[in-house]
């Protein structure tokens, strides 16, 4: 595609439910990142994939959060037992390689846990 695509754009879920957020990176981009952005804050790093493997998952807040990228393109961020504090905009970004290059961001998924 022309840019990074994230679905859904908005997701409202009940506390305790499981959610999946999808990211379609730019074709050919090997590096993929997930960030989380709360109101009035900058994006906060969650996890980085180089190809299919998670090269850095140090930003995942706890074990309720998990992400996969099984074929090295599309990635899914999974959140179990959602809590109200998980409410935020989840941003996905891709780049042609890791390091020293610009990151292309999707429009984000706004997650609201009620």
């Amino acid at each position, binding site marked *: 595609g022309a840019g990074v695509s994230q679905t859904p754009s908005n997701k409202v879920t009940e506390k305790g439910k499981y959610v999946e957020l999808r990211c379609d990176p730019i074709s050919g981009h090997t590096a993929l*990142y997930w960030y989380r952005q709360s109101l009035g804050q*900058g994006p906060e*790093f969650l996890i980085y994939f180089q190809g299919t493997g998670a090269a850095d998952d140090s930003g995942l807040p706890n074990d309720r959060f998990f992400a996969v990228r099984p074929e090295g393109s599309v990635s899914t961020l999974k959140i179990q037992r959602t809590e109200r504090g998980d409410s935020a905009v989840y941003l996905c970004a891709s780049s042609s390689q890791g390091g020293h290059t610009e*990151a*292309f961001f999707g429009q984000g998924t706004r997650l609201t846990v009620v």
Partner: protein
Amino acid sequence: SQKIEQNSEALNIQEGKTATLTCNYTNYSPAYLQWYRQDPGRGPVFLLLIRENEKEKRKERLKVTFDTTLKQSLFHITASQPADSATYLCALPSGGATNKLIFGTGTLLAVQP
């Protein structure tokens, strides 16, 4: 720990003037620094990357400076337009070969016609 500071207060300027935004960082020696623009409800959009051995970089009406001694970057928009109104984010790599970025909180710029 690494820390990035941007003016949290909104910057209001008149159309045609030069907007100057500041990014300060501590506990850090980044190899480069990036600036992004973010509009409401959208993801950040890359604007400029400046490396540690570059003092200044320009792109059209944009200019970025990088002072590794002061640990500061300045972002200038000359001949500002209402369409430049947005939040501008400063971002630095956390280190290593990845593009894992640490972002500032951003500064909201409002250009009045």
